[in-house]
């Protein structure tokens, strides 16, 4: 069992608080992605778990054992580094065997595990070569093989795919996912790429300014973001946000965008009532709007500014009030810049954001 518990961990660099009172529990064999923009503290948190930078405050336990102040070698972890950090002076074989040698495994066991790891990553034929002349993708595989050969209960990965080109990244993403399912280690994976996070993680911990913003399954993080930051960070294109005003007309709560009146879902009404007369932010994803080519009572008329054909969809850019909104349409929907279209906002797809706190309001 290798459940990782992170309790109130804080890490400072001088006056800068890189990780601020973070608590997180990662279950045994779970694959958790730490996602966030550069400088959000995700790598710092990972290093604190690895023991490469001790936490200033808080407690970290792995499998019930307090490792907060243990050196890395005593934590039973292995790691894949962003720059791969493979040893340039060793053959691939010795790179993979390094950790096993340091932990004094016997020769046969080392050989067995090195070959097993190499096989899993399809690098058997590279074992006798030096990393110097190898491609980024091959080095990446060596780094991963070195980590999994340890058979540690915990595997840490620090942006392992960020140095690969786009095509290779796509390939490695799927392969890593398969591999991690096979080896059954508890995995923490740091990335700033939200697509990697969505596609790979069992759960995603979204970080910003040293704090966890939301920690949930990818579909929940995508559909039900905890705040405006997460909605705007996750998804391609990110969630659209429009400024509106809550008004009570004839006893019914409405949200006005300019002259257009939006009817919220039934469940939201009690919450929105308290916002009567106040501004509110309406969040909706590009693919959740219905696009009509003729007026309808419950549809907002907008002018198309830009049409981006992306193959599987057409992305329209429109202005709603002061806000730029991206709308995804089926490629068969005929539209030209300058044309008028009508947008319908399904009530259950709208996320209501408190404009002061940025929190998304849920019933």
């Amino acid at each position, binding site marked *: 069992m290798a459940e990782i518990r992170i309790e109130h961990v804080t890490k400072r660099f001088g006056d800068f608080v890189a990780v601020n009172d973070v608590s997180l529990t990662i279950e045994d064999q779970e694959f958790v992605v730490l996602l966030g923009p550069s400088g959000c503290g995700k790598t710092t948190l990972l290093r604190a778990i690895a023991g490469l930078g001790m936490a200033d405050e808080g407690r970290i336990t792995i499998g019930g054992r307090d490792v907060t102040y243990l050196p890395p070698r005593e934590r039973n972890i292995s790691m894949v580094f962003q720059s791969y950090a493979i*040893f340039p002076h060793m053959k691939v074989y010795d790179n993979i065997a390094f950790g096993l040698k340091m932990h004094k495994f016997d020769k046969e066991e080392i050989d067995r595990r090195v070959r097993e790891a190499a096989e899993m990553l399809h690098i058997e034929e590279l074992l006798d070569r030096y990393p110097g002349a190898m491609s980024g993708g091959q080095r990446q595989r060596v780094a991963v093989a070195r980590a999994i050969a*340890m058979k540690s209960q915990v595997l840490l990965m620090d942006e392992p795919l960020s140095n690969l080109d786009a095509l290779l990244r796509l390939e490695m993403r799927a392969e890593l996912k398969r591999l991690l399912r096979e080896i059954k280690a508890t995995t923490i994976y740091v990335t700033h790429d939200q697509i990697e996070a969505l596609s790979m993680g069992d759960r995603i911990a979204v970080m910003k300014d040293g704090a966890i913003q939301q920690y949930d399954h990818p579909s929940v993080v995508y559909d039900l973001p905890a705040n405006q930051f997460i909605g705007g960070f996750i998804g391609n294109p990110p969630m659209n946000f429009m400024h509106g005003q809550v008004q009570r007309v004839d006893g019914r709560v409405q949200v006005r965008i300019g002259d257009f009146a939006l009817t919220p879902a039934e469940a939201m009404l009690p919450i929105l009532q308290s916002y009567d007369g106040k501004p509110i932010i309406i969040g909706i994803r590009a693919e959740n709007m219905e696009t009509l080519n003729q007026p309808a009572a419950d549809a907002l008329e907008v002018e198309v500014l830009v049409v981006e054909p992306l193959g599987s969809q057409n992305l329209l850019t429109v202005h709603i009030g002061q806000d730029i909104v991206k709308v995804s349409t089926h490629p068969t929907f005929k539209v030209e810049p300058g044309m008028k279209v009508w947008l319908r906002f399904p009530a259950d797809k709208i996320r209501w954001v408190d404009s002061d706190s940025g929190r998304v309001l849920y019933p």
Partner: protein
Amino acid sequence: MSLSEIPKRRKKRNWAPYILIMPALLYLALFFAWPMARGLVLAVWDDEALLSIHAEAQRDSAVVGHIPQNAHLDILDQQGNFVPEEELNLENMLTETWFRVKGEDAEGNTIEGWAPDSRIRVREEAEDGTPLAGTVRTKLGTKADPLTSVYAEPNKHSQVVGKLEARTRVEIVDVALLEVWYRVRGENEKGEPVEGWAQSRYIQVFGDESRGRVDRGNTGQLTTKFIDKMIHDRFFLPALRNTLLLMVIIIPTQFVLAIIMALVIQARLKGNTIFLYIFAIPLGVSDLAVGILWFSVFTQNGLLNSILQYLGLISHPSPYLTAETRHWIIIAIWLAEVWRATSIVMVIVVSGLQAISDEVLEAAELFGANLWQRIRHVILPLLKPSLQVALILRTILALQVFAVVIALSGGDVVTVLANETFRQYSDFRNPNVAAAYAGFILLLSMISAIIYLRTIRTQEELAA
């Protein structure tokens, strides 16, 4: 400017880089390669090895053979020859002076011709010492012709134009200074007889004027005699032994210290810049100054004895830097050199350490290597290229160790190769043997550099 005026661009060789490096090449050739080649040639080229023997007593006459330096000669004849003024006053050179005289013979005929100065007594001189007039000397002995011959040329073999009686007054019209040429017979290097003419400047004549030896030659020859002389020099083996001994004790100490110092600096402790400055101070002190500094520590009334006496550990100052305590001199040189030159290695090692990525070191730590294992399995192998550079540099510098040794031993009790080079050149005035020593040091440097480059290859090179 219209389009047609723009000159067509032709594909052209770009000479600019070549022109730019010309001054550097010129500089190298002029101030480096040439003097160095000249210097090294001294060690194997004896430019006084052979004396050319001419068919006639003339510089431009054919060379009939060579006689090696120091060979003995029979002197058969001699003759004077004009000698350019700038060549006068050479060592060993024998000259004779001839006067062109004008006077009347017994019959009253005016005779003008050359006579050697041994036959004319100068009676009148101009203010600058130029002889103007004289009288013919009386010949001693009875068998000889009492008359003095006057020759057409300043040469006893030339035609006699007349004879003058003793005490005849003559006008001195001209003076000729002649170098003596000898007709000699000797043997060349193969033992074959050679006979011909050679200038007196190259020949040492023995008392009886019929025997002599080649004092120095005028033709160069490749030789190993300077190298032989160096090898058989009684200081050669001690110097080589001491130089190698110093290398063996200095370099490993320096490397261990330098790597520790570099790791201390790399650990980014508080105040590590101060460490760096302290470590680097010796870089700014000249080696002679360092030698004198350590001399002041180890000398009889020096710092070391003062401290030991103050602490009451010894009652009388004990001498360290004497011929009886050679080991102390070696220890003092070792300390001085380690103190002086370790920081050079450290600087190289620090720059090498900085080139190792932090993530690689962290990976080593994470995969279970402790500090010693990280140094042994990751840091040292990755430092190999830097260590190689430092090792070559340090070995070359250790072969040249000089000023510290001079300061601490005076250059006699403990001697090193560089000191012998200096001594041969300066004290024994023997630039050829000095060049042999210098060439030997160069050879040792090159051999050690090649050994290092071969044995400490980086893994990438081996794989390639």
